[in-house]
């Protein structure tokens, strides 16, 4: 059937307003809107992938034409969804509890005992099932020619796609405002408020709101972005397994302020890797030892319960009507697509005889996409029929989809979501419609990328007031002016983000300074010396190999090495990739605007490096793009990030990196005979971006002491050493909050020593000679800054070691000689 047009070729009433608005745009405008949606998705949305990350080029595309749904149809689906969720919850409660369904023969034992999703760690003999079991549920449906939506897949484990639905709605609001005004879809925010509220109700009711966290495997997960947007929407802390620890039977988050209790954990980590104590084959470092036991004894609400994935088994569909009658005393409202478990007598023969398309899926793996039956598959199915199930596929309903140039009717799979609270199940008034364009998988987990539509549930003609659940009486939240609880991992990542951004900035400056000199056709002897000094700095910074150092007046190898460094696989490209990854890990600490600023300017720098080729001028421009990125980060950090907390670690990383680089470069540049010190001084000023300041103070007379004062001891020069050290001192003092702190004291001592260094040159009769003697002292100072960095790491990030498993050895033996006789 066609979602938009009825059998007589008339536009269905619920499409009319929408279609009027879309049609009113005209084709060129619709193309522009589609592009705008795509751009917005790339810059700030689901498709957003930073340069250098593995998933580059993948993501979700949102169609500019939504799928409208009449209020009455949604109400029917909502009732069906709610019943199905209740039913699956009751099935799970039995299978993880008394297992009467098996004894009564309502479910074949093989689908439980032979099911890898049946987690024995979640069941205790003679004890009730874990509670809560299901808090979140989704169903993916197809609509057949008879107009009925029927369920193809149930999602009860890692329920993905709500973040996508939310993002689609936001992007559509920006790109298709006319359609919004015309069709008036129901908003989604009440649903997310309800969900947030229901999660909090799962926690203990004591003073202060329960602490809710969303557990993500991390940035490598295909749904990382969804974890970021959901955690923000429901005000949950976004955490990774390494951030958590179980102490005294309860769960805690490791933060800079110590251990903070977690009451409710929304897990997006595969259940069988969640707790290495319970699952010996799980990676000990990838989970939280003891978290299941904390949940088992009620110290933690863990949703959905580990093992809820069992309800996703595709073969279960064959038994749901009878289970619904038995468990709920009701008939099943929202049916499944006709499905047979091939372990049932006669099922295989029906598949062999069928003419319609049949989706074959592993009976017990709801994550698998499945494949359409062909006779070649028969031997595989007959070899182990109990391992498979067959689902009869209808001709799925189509709706107009915009390919970029034209509207064409394409089939859809509709995913709807529901959450439960103590009053029952509530469906999201919206959803995700996947376009089955031939490349999309039929069933299984939500893929990493695809084409989708926003689902618009239309308000009733006679707008009824929307009645939400009574707001929970929570004690008022105390106003906090500090940074809150920052996970140690986040602080660690911000610190390294600061260091790498600065390292990139430094690399770009060095390369640009070198390129400027190489571009002059006939270099002066002074310039040749400068290029040699710069090459030493480049080598020290790991940007070029030793072979590229200029020798015998030839700089060809150097130019080639710089061109290589600028490429994505070169040293600069690798720095960009590291920065991209770190940006992702702290994404929940950045607003969308901040993230877009980081993302776009880094992407521009990446693109400039990719296209620069070997031309010295284009390489120079590529370096400028990197400098712009670094400036953008600095601007965002100072203007948009809340003082304290996370920003301090970004600042610390940046300042420590810059101070060490300044010291290293001055050391290398001055490391030559006193007679050539003037050329070195000029370069020092240039690298520290201090030429103009120097000139305005001292005109053109270059002398060692004023130069070194400006770059080492002047606290007002933002690219000089003294400025960095006092910034480090201030940040350390603010982070620690202690009146006496050895790390802060060490920074103070470094600041005084830098001043004393300059004074000693001033006191020396021969300034140039004294300056040439500096490098060893500078290098010692750089070592002390390295020590300071270690101190920061030990104090603030040392809570993140990794665990390992123990005692997986078996019983040894009974010596044969001492057998019982």
């Amino acid at each position, binding site marked *: 059937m066609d979602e938009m047009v009825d059998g007589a070729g008339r536009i269905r009433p619920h499409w009319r307003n929408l279609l009027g608005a879309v049609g009113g745009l005209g084709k060129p405008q619709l193309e522009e809107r589609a592009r705008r949606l795509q751009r917005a998705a790339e810059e700030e949305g689901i498709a957003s992938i930073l340069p250098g990350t593995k998933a580059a080029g993948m993501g979700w595309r949102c169609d500019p034409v939504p799928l409208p749904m009449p209020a009455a149809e949604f109400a029917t689906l909502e009732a069906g969804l709610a019943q199905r969720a209740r039913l699956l919850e009751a099935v799970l409660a039995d299978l993880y509890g008394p297992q009467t369904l*098996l*004894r*009564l*023969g309502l479910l074949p*034992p*093989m689908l439980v*005992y*032979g099911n890898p999703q049946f987690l*024995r*760690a979640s*069941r*205790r*003999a*003679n*004890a009730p099932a874990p509670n809560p079991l299901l808090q979140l549920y989704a169903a993916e449906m197809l609509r057949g020619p008879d107009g009925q939506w029927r369920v193809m897949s149930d999602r009860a484990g890692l329920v993905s796609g709500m973040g996508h639905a939310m993002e689609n709605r936001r992007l559509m609001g920006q790109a298709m405002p006319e359609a919004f005004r015309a069709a008036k879809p129901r908003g989604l925010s009440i649903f997310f408020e309800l969900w947030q509220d229901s999660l909090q109700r799962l926690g203990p009711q004591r003073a202060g709101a329960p602490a809710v966290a969303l557990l993500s495997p991390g940035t490598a997960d295909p749904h990382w972005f969804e974890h970021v947007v959901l955690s923000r929407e429901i005000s949950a802390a976004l955490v990774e397994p390494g951030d958590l*620890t*179980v*102490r*005294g*039977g309860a769960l805690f988050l490791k933060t800079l302020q110590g251990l903070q209790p977690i009451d409710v954990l929304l897990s997006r980590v595969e259940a069988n890797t969640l707790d*290495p*104590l*319970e699952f*010996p*084959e799980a990676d*000990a470092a990838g989970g939280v*030892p*003891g978290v299941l*036991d904390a949940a*088992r*004894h009620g110290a933690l609400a863990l949703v959905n319960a580990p093992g809820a994935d069992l309800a996703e088994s595709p073969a279960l569909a064959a038994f749901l009507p009878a289970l619904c009658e038995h468990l709920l005393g009701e008939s099943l409202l929202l049916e499944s697509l006709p499905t047979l478990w091939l372990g049932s007598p006669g099922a295989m023969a029906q598949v062999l005889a069928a003419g319609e398309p049949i989706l074959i899926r592993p009976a017990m793996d709801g994550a698998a996409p499945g494949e359409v039956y062909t006779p070649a598959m028969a031997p595989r199915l007959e070899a182990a029929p109990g391992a498979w199930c067959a689902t009869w596929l209808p001709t799925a309903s189509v709706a107009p989809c915009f390919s970029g140039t034209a509207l064409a009717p394409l089939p859809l799979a509709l995913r709807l979501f529901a959450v439960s609270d103590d009053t029952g199940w509530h469906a999201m008034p919206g959803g995700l419609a996947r376009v089955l364009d031939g490349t999309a998988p039929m069933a299984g987990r939500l893929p990493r990328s695809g084409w989708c539509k926003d689902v618009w549930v239309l308000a009733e003609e006679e707008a009824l007031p929307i009645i939400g659940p009574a707001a929970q009486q929570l004690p008022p939240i105390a106003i906090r002016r500090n940074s809150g609880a920052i996970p140690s991992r986040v602080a660690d990542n911000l610190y390294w983000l600061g260091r790498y951004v600065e390292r990139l900035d430094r690399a770009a400056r060095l390369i640009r300074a070198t390129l400027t000199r190489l571009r002059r056709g006939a270099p002066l002897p002074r310039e040749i010396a400068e290029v040699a000094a710069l090459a030493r700095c480049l080598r020290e910074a790991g940007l070029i190999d030793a072979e590229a150092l200029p020798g015998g007046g030839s700089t060809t190898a150097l130019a080639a090495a710089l061109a290589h460094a600028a490429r994505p696989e070169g040293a600069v490209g690798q720095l960009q990739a590291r920065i991209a990854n770190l940006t992702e890990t702290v994404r929940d600490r950045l607003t969308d605007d901040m993230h877009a600023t980081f993302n776009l300017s880094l992407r521009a720098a990446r693109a400039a490096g990719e296209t620069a080729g070997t031309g010295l001028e284009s390489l120079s421009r590529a370096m400028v793009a990197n400098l712009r990125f670094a400036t953008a980060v600095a601007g965002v950090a100072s203007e948009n990030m809340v003082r304290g907390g996370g920003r301090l670690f970004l600042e610390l990383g940046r300042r420590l990196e810059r101070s060490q680089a300044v010291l290293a470069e001055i050391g290398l540049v001055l490391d030559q005979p006193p007679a050539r010190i003037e050329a070195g001084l000029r370069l020092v000023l240039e690298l520290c971006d201090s030429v103009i300041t120097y000139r305005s103070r001292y005109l053109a007379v270059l002398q060692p002491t004023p130069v070194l004062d400006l770059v080492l001891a002047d606290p007002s020069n933002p690219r000089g050493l003294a400025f960095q050290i006092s910034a480090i001192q201030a940040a350390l003092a603010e982070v620690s909050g202690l009146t006496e702190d050895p790390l802060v004291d060490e920074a103070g001592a470094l600041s005084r020593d830098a001043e004393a260094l300059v004074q000693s040159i001033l006191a020396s009769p021969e300034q140039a000679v004294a300056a040439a003697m500096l490098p060893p002292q500078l290098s010692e100072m750089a070592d002390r800054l390295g020590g300071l960095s270690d101190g920061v790491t030990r104090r603030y990030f040392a809570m993140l*070691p*990794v*665990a*390992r*498993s*123990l*005692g*997986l*050895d*078996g*019983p*040894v*033996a*009974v*010596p*044969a*000689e*001492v*057998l*019982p*006789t």
Partner: protein
Amino acid sequence: MMYWVRHITAYAYDQPVDLAAHLLHLKPRALPGQRVIHARIRCQPAPDHATETHDHFGNAATRIFIAAPHQHFEVTAEALVEVNFAPPPQPEATLPWDVVADQAQRGCDEATEYLHASAHAPALAEAAEFARPCFPPGRPVLAALLHLNERIATEFRFQAGVTSISTPVEEVLRLRRGVCQDFTHLMIAALRGLGLPARYMSGYIRTRPLPGQERRRGADQSHAWVGAWLGERDGWVGLDPTNGIVVRDEHVVIAWGRDFADISPLRGVILGGGAHHLSVSVDLEPAEGG
């Protein structure tokens, strides 16, 4: 028989362990034929937190959590147990094995759980083929099982050190040697391959010193054997393929599961520690009045 069991597991670490979590299956199960008069677990250092539950299989599972840095960890499990399992039925009077397999296949008894392959007892055609000569069509199930039990005890050499828990069953079949858990996993894989439910039993066995020698303290070991299903009427029987015997009153049952991984006596997750050294000592002695 009444037995006094003491099972000490000690870990020494080269560096301090900052945080440890351990899962223990060390308390004998109360069963028809096995009365647990006393059982307790002590641990050094004392845990910050400990829980005691029954697992899915009905075994006692103890979890302990230690948050204080430690370089030595020791668990002592002690129990006083009286065992006297009912004698098995007359082998020739048991159901034909194919009927038992059919019951398991159709049935909804808990035995069906032990039909399915598991990590340490995978579906392996060679294992089933090894057992098949003992299982001609229609042979009474216990007669066939005893035959297989006997064959493993005689055709495989007991030898410690050639295998570890990660040695797969097919390797054990090839080597024709190994230790108790190897033979147990092999027999389980073979029986499941024929469609017969089989489970992994963990516990202890009474040992006797060689003639003329003193009994050595702590020289006993953890032991493993097979629980095999005789059908709905006769239930389960314990078969020890390492020794080729039926379990009666010289074995003490701690726990059962699909294989070793479900019920390993002690495993854990630690932070820190460096290299570790493990020592285990087990004593199973007939108790006074037994």
